[in-house]
């Protein structure tokens, strides 16, 4: 009898550890999925407070819309360091505002950010905040927080496969990610559930739980297309369950793995108008 019990316990432990291992391997593939070394895009962000009308959530007020031209390039041995430039096209009140951002894979290497306000006429260094506590505030006033836009480091979370199910006609793993101690200190989330497409290793849906363990956001990746041989969710919906606000992030146009000059991802782009506009014009000819 003891032998049977011991076998069951060992089997259970083996299954559990293999489950965690599998989950981590899956998430490794999700994180490592090729998103292109460069990205040139025109992004539309539309946000509003929603109310239930019949069976649908509809905007209760006129959506706030921002349109941005974005250029990103990955660096480093793992292509996990990112440099990006974003220029606001709409609304007219913010037209011409430019952001330059450098994100680093290395832990404890703070993001570098510069802001160019055409009205102010100078480049201003932005303080991104303390890395050891959660950041509040939203990305361009949307329901995306800066944390939602960050790249995920595999070792920052422990993973567990909760099960498998068909979600939106795709076989998916449902994987739970719990931030490790160091990550938990600075994360707004205590738990994330992802629906990972088994075939394409892309999250179709994510649920984010706040630090009190309450469901706070749902993120849906839609219109998943293959562009320049890379999977791209062209429309991402985030629904904030607390504020009852939603944001659609739509890639109106996008091109990947095109040649982007290193010099374009420097402060020169923010201040040198002729260089910025002529280079952007060339890049935008790649857009689909």
């Amino acid at each position, binding site marked *: 009898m003891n032998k049977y019990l011991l076998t069951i316990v060992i089997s259970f432990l083996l299954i559990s550890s293999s489950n965690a291992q599998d989950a981590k391997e899956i998430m490794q593939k999700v994180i490592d999925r090729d998103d292109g070394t460069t990205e040139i895009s025109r992004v539309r962000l539309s946000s509003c407070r929603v109310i*239930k009308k019949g069976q649908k959530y509809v905007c209760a007020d006129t959506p706030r819309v921002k349109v941005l031209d974005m250029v990103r390039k990955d660096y480093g041995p793992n292509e996990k360091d990112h440099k990006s430039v974003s220029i606001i096209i709409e609304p007219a009140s913010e037209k011409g505002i430019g952001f330059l951002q450098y994100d680093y894979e290395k832990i404890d290497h703070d993001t570098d950010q510069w802001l160019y306000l055409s009205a102010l006429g100078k480049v201003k260094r932005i303080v991104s905040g*303390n890395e050891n506590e959660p950041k509040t505030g*939203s990305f361009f006033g949307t329901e995306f927080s800066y944390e939602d836009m960050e790249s995920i480091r595999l070792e920052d979370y422990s993973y567990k496969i909760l099960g498998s*199910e068909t979600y*939106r006609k795709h076989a998916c793993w449902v994987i739970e990610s719990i931030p490790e101690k160091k990550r938990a200190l600075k994360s707004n989330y205590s738990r994330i559930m992802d629906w990972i497409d088994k075939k394409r290793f892309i999250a179709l*849906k994510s649920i984010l739980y706040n630090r009190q363990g309450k469901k706070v956001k749902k993120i849906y990746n839609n219109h998943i297309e293959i562009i320049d041989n890379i999977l791209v969710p062209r429309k991402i919906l985030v629904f904030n369950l607390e504020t009852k606000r939603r944001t659609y992030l739509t890639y109106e146009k996008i091109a990947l793995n095109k040649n982007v000059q290193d010099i374009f991802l420097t402060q020169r782009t923010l201040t040198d108008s002729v260089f910025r506009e002529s280079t952007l014009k060339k890049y935008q000819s790649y857009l689909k």
Partner: protein
Amino acid sequence: MNNLFFYPIIVFLSITLIASIHAKSIFDSDDDMVFEPDNSHHQSDEIFDPESAFDDDAIIDDDAVFSNESFFQEEKELADPWYHNQILKDSRFTLGYEFSNNLVLKPSFVTHDTYFRSEIQTLLTDKLFFQFDGRSNLLFDNDHRTQASNKSIRIVSNLRELFFQIGFNQFNISLGRQIVVWGKADTQIITDIVSPRDNSDFIFIKLEDSRFGQLMLSSDIYTQWGNLFIFVSPHPLTDNEPENETQYYLEIPGLDQLIIIDDKPTYADTEYGIRWKKNWGKVDLSIMAGCFFDNSSIYHFKMIDFAQRKPIIEKIYHPYEMIGLAASYVSGAFLYKIETAYKNRLSFQKLDAVNFDIGAIEKNIVDMGIGLEFNANGRYQIAGEVTNRFIPSATDNLIFTKKNSTTIYTIFSKDFFNNTLMFEYNFFYHVQEQNNFHQFRLTHDMADNFQMISSCTFFSMKDKESLLWFYRNEDRLSVTFQYYF
């Protein structure tokens, strides 16, 4: 025994199979997650699909089935109506209406005007860029500037920028009326001395709106050792001071008994400068140098006009040289800033009333500022700045000038409602004069292109010998509405 062993496995497999076949998730149901589309031309798509019960039209994300090509092209066509040409597309227009009330003195209206601003930034060819920024204000009869000119209505225009820029591989050249912004300090002028400012509305014009351009030929040169900016201005302009009899005009006793001639710099007076700028990771550094004309004037006694029996006083804008440095370093939630400048032969006002000796004295001075910005991870931001002007030599015969002039400036700002409402509090304090003011500002983006800015400013002036003493009763409430298109 065998049956007992396999029974739980069969049950487990059955549950898994049922769960995977069933449309609803056992973890989270999307039953009520149905959103209206965010594009108007999708409004007709109202069909609720219980199988994929959440999105507007896009649940079927199979690449073979759904092609976004047509969808996005259609959107582009809608976004570009026939009347959009390149210049219009690259333009921004602002219609504004503003008024302000003095909270101490009567009558209370100070400013009351409407304005139109046009900004164009467009690429004319692959190498040629054009920038224009101009503004016209229509001042109503109760505006202090209209009243000073004894008119019922007044139009004031201001050409802030108009220049062409030609781009090359490593550099560009710009010619025309341009604004140049130097340095890191947000309040006192340390190295930001090139572009003149509009002081006609005292401190109530935001710094970014107060600067205006002057004719110059400039070039940015980009090298691996840093970026160089060089400019030559053949006809430097000077600050716009408050006009005679307007609200913020300094009514210094006796000034009306003088004939004043404004001797502004001409085409013979050239201003030129250079800035080198480089970034190393968390550090941004710039060094500036040049020869400039002071943007504010010094009064000089010229002669007596015997016909009018009045002394003639000339306002002269003196040349001086400057070398300066500005640097910032960011670490975590803090940004540290430093800025310093050595100004050679800077002129100050001398006044010896007994001997009727009115003129300029040249001094070599050191301006310095240190600042700190703190970002509480998006909850709020605080910035502080201390600046000091030090005149090493004697200052006894200078008016409105002390050996040390130290100011402290702090800003607290906080965003609300997804960055659509911003509260800002500014506090300015002059250490030696003990003058200070508080300013509260609320910026509300009522819609994407419609903004309301209201601000309230309270002065507390202690030093009767200071220039700011003249503004002790200028507490003001200002409201501005701006529509952008």
